Protein backbone atom coordinates (compact mmCIF):
# COMPACT_ATOMS: atom_id res chain seq x y z
CA UNK A 1 0.00 0.00 0.00
CA UNK A 2 1.34 3.39 -0.87
CA UNK A 3 1.53 5.86 1.95
CA UNK A 4 2.44 9.43 1.38
CA UNK A 5 4.71 10.74 4.10
CA UNK A 6 4.47 14.47 4.58
CA UNK A 7 6.50 16.73 6.84
CA UNK A 8 4.37 18.09 9.65
CA UNK A 9 3.53 21.70 8.92
CA UNK A 10 5.20 23.41 11.84
CA UNK A 11 4.16 27.01 11.71
CA UNK A 12 5.85 29.50 13.96
CA UNK A 13 6.41 33.20 14.35
CA UNK A 14 8.22 35.56 16.72
CA UNK A 15 6.81 35.58 20.23
CA UNK A 16 4.81 38.49 21.62
CA UNK A 17 6.96 38.98 24.71
CA UNK A 18 10.04 39.91 22.77
CA UNK A 19 11.85 43.14 21.99
CA UNK A 20 14.60 43.18 19.39
CA UNK A 21 16.77 45.28 17.13
CA UNK A 22 19.25 44.57 14.39
CA UNK A 23 22.71 45.94 15.15
CA UNK A 24 25.20 45.70 12.30
CA UNK A 25 24.46 42.29 10.79
CA UNK A 26 23.10 40.59 13.89
CA UNK A 27 19.92 40.73 15.88
CA UNK A 28 19.77 41.33 19.61
CA UNK A 29 16.69 39.94 21.27
CA UNK A 30 15.38 40.63 24.75
CA UNK A 31 13.18 37.94 26.17
CA UNK A 32 10.93 40.19 28.27
CA UNK A 33 9.46 37.31 30.24
CA UNK A 34 12.91 36.31 31.53
CA UNK A 35 14.77 39.65 31.23
CA UNK A 36 17.47 37.97 29.19
CA UNK A 37 19.35 39.09 26.09
CA UNK A 38 20.33 36.88 23.19
CA UNK A 39 22.49 37.68 20.18
CA UNK A 40 21.73 35.72 17.04
CA UNK A 41 24.34 34.76 14.46
CA UNK A 42 23.96 35.72 10.80
CA UNK A 43 21.82 32.81 9.71
CA UNK A 44 19.77 33.13 12.90
CA UNK A 45 19.26 36.79 12.09
CA UNK A 46 18.03 35.90 8.61
CA UNK A 47 15.55 33.37 9.99
CA UNK A 48 14.45 35.65 12.83
CA UNK A 49 13.54 38.41 10.41
CA UNK A 50 11.57 35.93 8.32
CA UNK A 51 9.67 34.88 11.45
CA UNK A 52 7.96 38.26 11.68
CA UNK A 53 5.31 36.44 9.64
CA UNK A 54 4.12 32.91 10.44
CA UNK A 55 6.38 30.45 8.60
CA UNK A 56 6.60 26.73 8.05
CA UNK A 57 9.87 24.85 8.39
CA UNK A 58 9.96 24.37 4.61
CA UNK A 59 9.59 28.09 3.97
CA UNK A 60 12.44 28.81 6.38
CA UNK A 61 14.61 26.17 4.76
CA UNK A 62 14.00 27.73 1.33
CA UNK A 63 14.69 31.16 2.78
CA UNK A 64 18.00 30.00 4.23
CA UNK A 65 19.06 28.24 1.03
CA UNK A 66 18.44 31.38 -1.02
CA UNK A 67 21.15 33.14 1.01
CA UNK A 68 23.52 30.31 1.88
CA UNK A 69 24.97 27.57 -0.28
CA UNK A 70 23.86 24.64 1.86
CA UNK A 71 22.19 21.34 1.11
CA UNK A 72 18.50 20.90 1.83
CA UNK A 73 19.36 18.42 4.55
CA UNK A 74 21.82 20.73 6.32
CA UNK A 75 19.47 23.68 6.02
CA UNK A 76 16.62 21.64 7.52
CA UNK A 77 18.82 20.57 10.42
CA UNK A 78 19.86 24.19 11.02
CA UNK A 79 16.30 25.51 10.86
CA UNK A 80 14.94 22.84 13.17
CA UNK A 81 17.78 23.42 15.63
CA UNK A 82 17.21 27.17 15.53
CA UNK A 83 13.46 26.81 16.12
CA UNK A 84 14.13 24.42 19.00
CA UNK A 85 16.50 26.98 20.57
CA UNK A 86 13.95 29.76 20.20
CA UNK A 87 11.24 27.58 21.68
CA UNK A 88 13.47 26.67 24.61
CA UNK A 89 14.00 30.38 25.30
CA UNK A 90 10.27 31.06 24.89
CA UNK A 91 10.83 33.36 21.94
CA UNK A 92 8.52 31.61 19.54
CA UNK A 93 4.76 31.43 19.20
CA UNK A 94 2.91 28.66 17.47
CA UNK A 95 0.90 30.31 14.71
Amino acid at each position, binding site marked *: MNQSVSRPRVIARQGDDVLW*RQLDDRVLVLD*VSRSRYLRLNRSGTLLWRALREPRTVDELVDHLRRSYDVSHEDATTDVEGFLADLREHGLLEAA
Partner: protein
Amino acid sequence: MTSALRAFSRRMTGQDLRATGRAVLLAVAVELALRMVSLDRVAHRLGLGFADGSRVDPRTEPAVPPGAVARVALDPRERVACRAVARVMRRWPGDRGTCLREALLYGHALRTRNPRLHVGAGTIDDRVVGHAWLSFDGGTLGYRRELVELTSDGR
Protein backbone atom coordinates in the same frame (compact mmCIF):
# COMPACT_ATOMS: atom_id res chain seq x y z
CA MET B 1 25.75 47.70 64.87
CA THR B 2 29.16 48.27 63.35
CA SER B 3 30.72 51.69 63.59
CA ALA B 4 30.49 52.13 59.80
CA LEU B 5 26.78 51.41 59.84
CA ARG B 6 26.33 53.69 62.84
CA ALA B 7 28.14 56.50 61.04
CA PHE B 8 26.06 55.85 57.92
CA SER B 9 22.77 56.02 59.75
CA ARG B 10 23.83 59.09 61.83
CA ARG B 11 24.04 61.17 58.65
CA MET B 12 20.42 60.44 57.81
CA THR B 13 17.24 61.94 59.14
CA GLY B 14 14.48 59.69 60.42
CA GLN B 15 12.61 60.32 57.19
CA ASP B 16 15.68 59.25 55.18
CA LEU B 17 16.08 56.11 57.28
CA ARG B 18 12.47 55.08 56.71
CA ALA B 19 12.73 55.80 52.98
CA THR B 20 15.96 53.78 52.78
CA GLY B 21 14.33 50.86 54.56
CA ARG B 22 11.44 50.99 52.09
CA ALA B 23 13.89 51.17 49.16
CA VAL B 24 15.79 48.12 50.44
CA LEU B 25 12.57 46.12 50.78
CA LEU B 26 11.42 47.22 47.34
CA ALA B 27 14.81 46.37 45.81
CA VAL B 28 14.61 42.87 47.27
CA ALA B 29 11.04 42.48 45.99
CA VAL B 30 12.11 43.65 42.52
CA GLU B 31 15.04 41.25 42.55
CA LEU B 32 12.72 38.34 43.30
CA ALA B 33 9.99 39.50 40.92
CA LEU B 34 12.44 39.75 38.01
CA ARG B 35 13.18 36.05 38.49
CA MET B 36 9.54 35.05 38.60
CA VAL B 37 7.45 37.25 36.32
CA SER B 38 7.97 39.11 33.09
CA LEU B 39 9.65 42.50 33.01
CA ASP B 40 6.59 44.34 31.72
CA ARG B 41 4.51 42.95 34.61
CA VAL B 42 7.13 44.05 37.16
CA ALA B 43 7.15 47.52 35.59
CA HIS B 44 3.37 47.78 35.67
CA ARG B 45 3.17 46.68 39.30
CA LEU B 46 5.62 49.46 40.20
CA GLY B 47 3.55 52.07 38.39
CA LEU B 48 5.68 52.36 35.25
CA GLY B 49 4.60 52.07 31.65
CA PHE B 50 6.63 49.68 29.55
CA ALA B 51 7.82 51.60 26.53
CA ASP B 52 7.93 50.00 23.15
CA GLY B 53 8.90 52.54 20.53
CA SER B 54 6.99 50.74 17.82
CA ARG B 55 3.74 50.85 19.77
CA VAL B 56 3.79 54.51 20.74
CA ASP B 57 0.69 56.36 19.66
CA PRO B 58 1.94 59.86 18.70
CA ARG B 59 -1.53 61.34 19.29
CA THR B 60 -1.48 60.49 22.99
CA GLU B 61 2.20 59.99 23.67
CA PRO B 62 4.49 62.60 22.18
CA ALA B 63 7.89 61.05 21.49
CA VAL B 64 10.57 62.00 23.95
CA PRO B 65 13.68 63.09 22.08
CA PRO B 66 16.44 60.60 22.87
CA GLY B 67 18.92 62.10 25.26
CA ALA B 68 16.68 64.93 26.39
CA VAL B 69 17.56 65.04 30.06
CA ALA B 70 14.61 65.19 32.40
CA ARG B 71 14.90 68.39 34.41
CA VAL B 72 12.14 68.44 36.92
CA ALA B 73 11.57 70.00 40.27
CA LEU B 74 11.04 67.07 42.58
CA ASP B 75 8.57 67.46 45.40
CA PRO B 76 9.89 66.69 48.92
CA ARG B 77 8.51 63.13 48.94
CA GLU B 78 10.14 62.35 45.59
CA ARG B 79 13.43 63.89 46.68
CA VAL B 80 13.60 61.71 49.79
CA ALA B 81 12.55 58.60 47.82
CA CYS B 82 15.12 59.23 45.04
CA ARG B 83 17.88 59.84 47.59
CA ALA B 84 17.01 56.53 49.21
CA VAL B 85 17.07 54.70 45.87
CA ALA B 86 20.49 56.19 45.09
CA ARG B 87 21.76 55.16 48.52
CA VAL B 88 20.55 51.58 48.13
CA MET B 89 21.64 51.13 44.52
CA ARG B 90 25.16 52.39 45.24
CA ARG B 91 25.59 49.40 47.52
CA TRP B 92 23.49 46.87 45.61
CA PRO B 93 25.47 43.67 44.96
CA GLY B 94 26.24 42.51 41.42
CA ASP B 95 27.17 44.52 38.38
CA ARG B 96 24.80 42.97 35.84
CA GLY B 97 21.42 44.54 35.29
CA THR B 98 21.86 47.19 37.95
CA CYS B 99 20.58 49.85 35.55
CA LEU B 100 17.32 47.91 35.18
CA ARG B 101 16.81 47.70 38.93
CA GLU B 102 17.72 51.35 39.25
CA ALA B 103 15.29 52.39 36.52
CA LEU B 104 12.51 50.35 38.14
CA LEU B 105 13.12 51.84 41.60
CA TYR B 106 13.47 55.42 40.37
CA GLY B 107 10.39 54.88 38.24
CA HIS B 108 8.47 53.80 41.31
CA ALA B 109 9.73 56.81 43.27
CA LEU B 110 8.56 59.06 40.42
CA ARG B 111 5.42 57.10 39.58
CA THR B 112 3.05 60.07 39.79
CA ARG B 113 4.83 61.47 36.70
CA ASN B 114 3.82 58.44 34.59
CA PRO B 115 7.35 57.32 33.80
CA ARG B 116 7.99 54.78 31.07
CA LEU B 117 10.66 52.13 31.17
CA HIS B 118 12.79 51.78 28.03
CA VAL B 119 15.08 48.87 27.30
CA GLY B 120 18.01 49.03 24.94
CA ALA B 121 21.13 47.16 24.01
CA GLY B 122 24.30 47.40 22.04
CA THR B 123 27.60 45.67 21.54
CA ILE B 124 30.73 47.01 23.17
CA ASP B 125 33.98 45.12 22.47
CA ASP B 126 31.87 42.38 20.87
CA ARG B 127 29.94 41.93 24.11
CA VAL B 128 26.20 42.44 24.35
CA VAL B 129 25.41 45.20 26.78
CA GLY B 130 21.86 45.76 27.93
CA HIS B 131 20.58 48.99 29.39
CA ALA B 132 17.38 50.42 30.80
CA TRP B 133 16.30 54.00 31.30
CA LEU B 134 13.23 56.10 32.04
CA SER B 135 11.34 58.77 30.20
CA PHE B 136 8.97 61.20 31.87
CA ASP B 137 8.02 64.87 31.74
CA GLY B 138 9.55 65.23 28.26
CA GLY B 139 12.99 63.98 29.21
CA THR B 140 14.96 60.84 29.95
CA LEU B 141 16.83 59.58 32.96
CA GLY B 142 19.76 57.20 32.44
CA TYR B 143 19.67 57.23 28.63
CA ARG B 144 22.94 56.16 26.90
CA ARG B 145 23.50 57.45 23.39
CA GLU B 146 25.66 54.51 22.24
CA LEU B 147 22.88 51.96 22.77
CA VAL B 148 19.68 51.56 20.78
CA GLU B 149 16.20 50.96 22.04
CA LEU B 150 14.68 47.54 21.44
CA THR B 151 11.17 47.34 20.03
CA SER B 152 8.65 44.62 19.29
CA ASP B 153 9.04 45.05 15.53
CA GLY B 154 12.81 45.60 15.49
CA ARG B 155 12.55 49.09 14.01
